[in-house]
């Protein structure tokens, strides 16, 4: 901006730009408010819009987050009904290996009795001694950014597909 004269003052002001800037500022403030509210609601992970439940075959209930963040703690909570256990009291939850390749499993509670690779699946077998439903929680961290598809199945049941999005 070339220097201008305001009275005796020599200054590189630019009123046309300044006016445009004020408009942009107001638009920006609105955008910030919208982003904060969206964040509060869970559009960027953890919150009302993110928390989701899915019901699969064999009454497998999965609670997960639609929106997750890169390298942040995430959870998959499976609730398995008592009748899903085999006669010896075990049940298996299988997760697609494609999905597991993009996450880091930090911990599983309760710990699985056995983990076995089975084609495209990794099957976690849990021993259930208590009657009634049991909840298994996978604590993970996402290692990749972008949309993600999670396939899970209980025992040999039909797989259930779930979509997630991982923010950078």
């Amino acid at each position: 901006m070339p220097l201008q004269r305001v009275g005796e003052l020599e200054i590189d002001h630019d009123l046309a730009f300044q006016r445009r800037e004020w408009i942009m500022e107001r638009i920006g403030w609105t955008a910030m408010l919208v982003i904060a509210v969206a964040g509060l609601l869970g559009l960027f992970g953890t919150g009302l819009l993110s928390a989701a439940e899915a019901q699969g075959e064999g009454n497998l209930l999965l609670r997960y987050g639609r929106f997750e963040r890169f390298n942040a703690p995430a959870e998959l909570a499976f609730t398995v009904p008592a009748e899903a256990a085999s006669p010896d009291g075990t049940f298996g939850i299988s997760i697609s290996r494609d999905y597991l390749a993009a996450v880091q499993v930090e911990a599983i509670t309760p710990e699985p009795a056995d983990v076995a690779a089975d084609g495209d699946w990794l099957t976690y077998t849990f021993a259930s001694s208590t009657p009634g439903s049991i909840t298994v929680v996978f604590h993970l961290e996402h290692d990749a950014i972008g949309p993600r598809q999670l396939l899970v199945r209980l025992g040999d049941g039909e797989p259930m597909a779930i979509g997630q999005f991982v923010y950078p």
Partner: protein
Amino acid sequence: MDSVLRAVAIYAVLLVVFRIAGKRALSQITTFDFVLILVIGEATQQALLGSDFSLTNAALVIVTLVGLDIGLSLLTSKLPGLKPWVEDVPLVIVEDGRMLKDRMAKSRVDEADILEEARRLQGLERLEQIKYAVLERNGGISIIPKP
């Protein structure tokens, strides 16, 4: 690769957010502004470094940030039209002893702010002693007293 991209992303986010916030935001007018700057730094640090606390990563991030800053200043000197977008423009808010209320309101500056700077910088006592006041790009107010 990761560290460079992180640094570029953070640089861009900070540039946009602070340009949107306006000249007066966080110009260290109050102690709280200063604290807020520290907290923002703390929040930024994690995203910049991730879980990699190696010397290489830190050096890479620093080189990228300073490099971007140099690059941007070179670019703005080549393209004068870009400069106001990146660096803002100063604004005259008192002209020949007359306060320009509309500009002051839009920039979130009031008489008290002008008087404070007049006392601090020039030892002036009253508004009528001020000839010009300019809201500078860094959010400070320059005062030119009447002779």
